[in-house]
């Protein structure tokens, strides 16, 4: 069975080709079947392969399909590598991918570009599978850019609104910056080690470089740059919130479950390099910490349901980076898996909410949806519970593992741990803020639209009473994901063979108690603040006064704009580039050659004057010429 591993990306690729070559005039049902079926097949195959692989107790399995290039000593092959880590990623991608495809057949039912949507989605899953299965960094780079491309195509799916196009381009260019730094990292690795095969790098690196040597620091920093770009971490995170312009299923699949975790996978896969460069590993930890705090605060002030979830994704990936930074590789992957479950659940649920409320995104214009949208409500509750790591939910086990590992970090353990706990507290507040504001309190769906920021020009006529649009196709994935979010904590992630077994963390019960209490207190505060319950009157007054006060208002706006990063980048890079481009529209070099031509023309006009037509002048020139000639002859 293992030798069929090549088929995993082949099925979605076949789906993509089928949908593209029929140029979108397949009937909707068949297009849906092809789209979902291909992912289903690869999910099934993934399960069979995982069972056989785990059962066989093999360390790893490499399957060469064909030699891609062979130039001198650079011979990357189109070959797939299977080990524990890959199995986990395979199952997440194909599993959740399948559920989301199922969901989107319902969500995109009335969209004209139905076939086009599924072709892009299939291409995305194929690229992601190639990324995960690649056994050398060049093939990984192929998958890496492939997913970047698909995210561009899908964010800008509703192309007739230029804003979507802008968001898509922004996403692609920002991730491209990260990809370029990763490419440079690849060149450096090849130049130093002579190969780009991941396993060879992992064995050669420790032999050739001592710990903390310049080259390994540079290489791992460059790879970190790539990871930061793709996983929307601090320097390059401005693109993810704007990526919400795409249809909601893709936000679930790409911007929550799979693509954004590619950075985490890359660092986990090349963990030997990072172990050799402790300074860079620490940098990873602090990048994670800073991002999770920044995102947490920003999420507090957001109004759009999808942007809240987007910032929460950035924050949760910050946790994964924190785990990687402190060396808790398996904890990071474990959190990656659980996060995929509950974040996909939250996004799909928000999709149902948006569809039912006719593309309403602003949570303050919802309220009281508990009764009207039961499925969405319960999904949100379970999802938010897992997100805030309430006890016995999957989030609890994975986040605690990370925080405990962070505590044991030799130098900055306590600082990292405190930041993590503060983050958990913020997470609790903003996730349950969303739940209380959207589903509890009075119904605000009818009042006049303060400002409509919905993204596509579909019919947004005002409507009668709200009723939930969830057929079986949309409800089933929600239920499965809800179950997984609750039960996910008990799945043991089979990555010990990859990262080596780590001993259990043992911390004082006080620490354990504190970590359990923090989310619960957060939920309570959020309840008091946002559910309009009478007991929270005092707190609500305090919040209103802070919001009105000058300083507080400014702080709110600062958080709302994602700590002003967008404006900063716009000012630093975008505007100067456009100015530079406009500055020299007509190529400077071209004017230089124009100058030469002008010179020749002036020369012509000057010398033509000598042709006066007067005989006397010609005679003078004759004699003058003779004098000149003799002068040169005798003296020069």
């Amino acid at each position: 069975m293992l030798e069929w591993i090549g088929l995993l990306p082949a099925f979605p690729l076949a789906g993509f080709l089928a949908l593209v070559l029929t140029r979108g005039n397949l009937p909707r049902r068949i297009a849906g079947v092809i789209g979902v079926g291909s992912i289903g097949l690869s999910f099934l195959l993934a399960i069979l392969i995982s069972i056989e692989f785990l059962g066989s107790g093999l360390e790893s399995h490499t399957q060469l399909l064909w030699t891609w290039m062979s130039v001198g000593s650079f011979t990357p092959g189109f070959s797939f590598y299977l080990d524990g880590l890959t199995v986990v990623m395979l199952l997440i991608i194909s599993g959740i991918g399948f559920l989301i495809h199922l969901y989107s057949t319902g969500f995109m039912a009335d969209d004209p570009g139905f076939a086009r949507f599924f072709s892009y989605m299939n291409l995305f899953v194929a690229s992601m599978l190639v990324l995960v299965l690649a056994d050398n960094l060049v093939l990984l780079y192929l998958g890496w850019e492939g997913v970047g491309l698909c995210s561009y195509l899908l964010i800008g799916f509703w192309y007739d609104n230029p804003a979507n196009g802008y968001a898509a381009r922004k996403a692609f260019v920002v991730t491209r910056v990260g990809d370029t730094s990763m490419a440079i990292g690849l060149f450096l690795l090849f130049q130093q080690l002579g190969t780009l095969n991941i396993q060879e790098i992992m064995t050669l690196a420790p032999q050739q470089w001592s710990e903390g040597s310049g080259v390994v620091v540079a290489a791992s920093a460059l790879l970190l740059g790539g990871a930061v770009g793709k996983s929307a971490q601090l320097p390059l995170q401005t693109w993810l919130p704007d990526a919400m312009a795409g249809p909601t299923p893709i936000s679930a699949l790409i911007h929550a479950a799979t693509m954004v975790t590619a950075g985490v996978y890359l660092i986990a896969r090349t963990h030997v390099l990072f172990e050799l460069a402790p300074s860079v590993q620490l940098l990873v930890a602090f990048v994670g910490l800073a991002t999770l705090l920044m995102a947490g605060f920003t999420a507090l002030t957001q109004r759009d349901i999808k942007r809240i979830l987007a910032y929460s994704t950035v924050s949760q990936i910050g946790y994964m980076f924190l785990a990687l930074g402190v060396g808790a590789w398996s904890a990071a992957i474990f959190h990656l898996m659980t996060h995929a479950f509950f974040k996909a659940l939250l996004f799909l649920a928000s999709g149902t909410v948006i569809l039912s409320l006719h593309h309403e995104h602003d949570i303050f214009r919802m309220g009281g949806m508990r009764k009207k949208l039961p499925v969405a409500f319960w999904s949100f509750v379970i999802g938010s519970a897992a997100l805030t790591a309430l006890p016995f939910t999957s989030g609890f086990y994975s986040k605690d593992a990370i925080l405990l590992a962070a505590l044991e970090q030799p130098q900055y353990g306590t600082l990292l741990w405190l930041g993590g706990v503060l983050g958990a507290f913020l997470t609790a507040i903003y996730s349950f803020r969303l739940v209380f504001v959207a589903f509890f309190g009075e119904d605000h769906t009818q009042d006049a639209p303060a400002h409509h920021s919905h993204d596509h020009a579909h019919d947004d006529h005002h409507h009668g009473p709200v009723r939930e649009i969830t057929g079986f196709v949309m409800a089933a994935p929600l239920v499965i994901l809800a179950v997984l979010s609750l039960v996910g904590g008990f799945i043991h992630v089979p990555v010990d063979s990859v990262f080596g077994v780590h001993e259990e963390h043992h911390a004082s019960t006080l620490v354990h108690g504190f970590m359990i209490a923090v989310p619960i207190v957060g939920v309570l505060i959020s309840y008091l603040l946002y559910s309009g319950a009478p007991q929270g009157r005092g707190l609500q007054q305090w919040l209103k006064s802070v919001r009105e006060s000058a300083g507080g208002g400014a702080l709110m706006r600062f958080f709302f704009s994602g700590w002003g990063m967008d404006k900063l980048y716009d000012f630093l890079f975008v505007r100067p580039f456009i100015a530079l481009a406009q500055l020299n529209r007509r190529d400077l070099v071209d004017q230089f050659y124009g100058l030469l031509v002008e010179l020749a023309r002036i020369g012509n006009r000057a010398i033509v004057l000598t042709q006066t037509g007067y005989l006397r002048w010609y005679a003078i020139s004759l004699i003058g010429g003779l004098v000149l000639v003799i002068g040169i002859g005798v003296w020069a």
Partner: protein
Amino acid sequence: MTGEQLLLLLPLIIVTATAVITMLGVAIKRNHAVSCLLTATGLFLALLSLIIVAQYPAQEVTPLLLVDSFNEFFTALILLAALAITLFSYPYLCNLEDHQDEFYLLIAIATLGALVMVGSTHFITAFLGMETLSVCLYGMVAYPLHRESTAQYPMEASIKYLVLSAVSSGFVLFGVALLYAQTGTLHFSDISVGITQGIANGPGAEYFIVASLLVITGFAFKLSLVPFHLWTPDVYEGAPLPATAFLATIGKIAMAALLMRFMSISGVLDSAAITHVLAVMAVLSIIGGNLLALLQSNLKRLLSYSSIAHMGYLVIALITIDSAMGGANESLGSEAVSFYLTAYVIMSLGAFGVMMVVSDSGHERDHIGHYQGLFWRDPWLALVFTAMLLSLAGIPLTIGFIGKFYVFAAGVQGAEWGLLAAMVIGSGIGLFYYLRIVYRMITPLDHDDPLPVAGIRDVIPHGILLLLLAALIIPGVVPGALMTLLQSVVQAL
């Protein structure tokens, strides 16, 4: 003067005979066709006689004339050019009511002068040849045409040419006189001895340099190199087309051949001063000639300027002629000059030929506008004209390119980097005005300006054009044969 030597002079004798017979023909009964036919057959017979002359080894016929392979080659070239011009001028002069025959007389005698120049190694014959050619050219340039609007142009051009040519002959004569006064011989030989050390008790080297420069100035005037080029555009524009063609081709060949002969025998090039002067003149001619032609819209003036530039390229090759006979490592210089001359003659004849075919004495089509849309009106003529222009610009597939390549080779051999740079810049500028004409021929014409319909009398000129086109393309693609011929020709130098 043994019988054999008389045989060697056969071409000269035949050409003189044609002149006399044509004169007698005109005296008996004035008939345009007959006199043209007589001249053409005369020239053709002279050409055939060359085959006889070629058998004999090179020898001096009286110290004045030297008949060797060099002389024979250029005689052939001149006779061919003269023949072509005679045949071209027949349809051109047809609509001139009276005195059409005298033109052929002038052509015959002028050719005679050119032949004498080419064969001379003695100043008397050189001077005699130059003057005969010049005087006949005065006549041809002043040939009265019936274009009311520009009737006085030929006369103006001829007077200008006469005065200036006389002044330049004065320079040559005075230079020769000074040389004669010191060396005692009018033969070209061993002026270099004087230049390098000066005669033991006589004046120093400067005297000889000045004398030689006087002579070279005269020659430079005839070749229209830059300081002495001002007459060229006016005379080319004023003169009727056949006269301009004659002046541009045979006038230049004879002078260049004479200069080459003078340079290699007299060893003038040994002195750095003279080579310096020639180099300066070459660079000025290339840059000046090309710049002058840049925005010129009268084709005759444009071709005159381009001839200045081409003479500049020629002088570059001339400079690298190694004074020693055939030189130790057989310099490419003289080969390059003769090849470039041949190429230049073919190109100019072709270009002027097309203009002659299209115009006649009543209405000359010499403005660039007349040739607009020629590609679509008369593809054959346009093809020939484009081939000639591209060859003048030095584009491959043509003899012009091989000529330029030869000059490059000579330049590189003589390590004349400055001159080669000037040549590249000159060619660059040159592309502009040649291509301007080609582009003008491509742009379609809105109003129709009908070309003279090609009657039976135009068959010959079109035939010659075909020959010229063949002479342009074949050596351009397979230059081997012509190169070996020229190699043997130059050995005699």
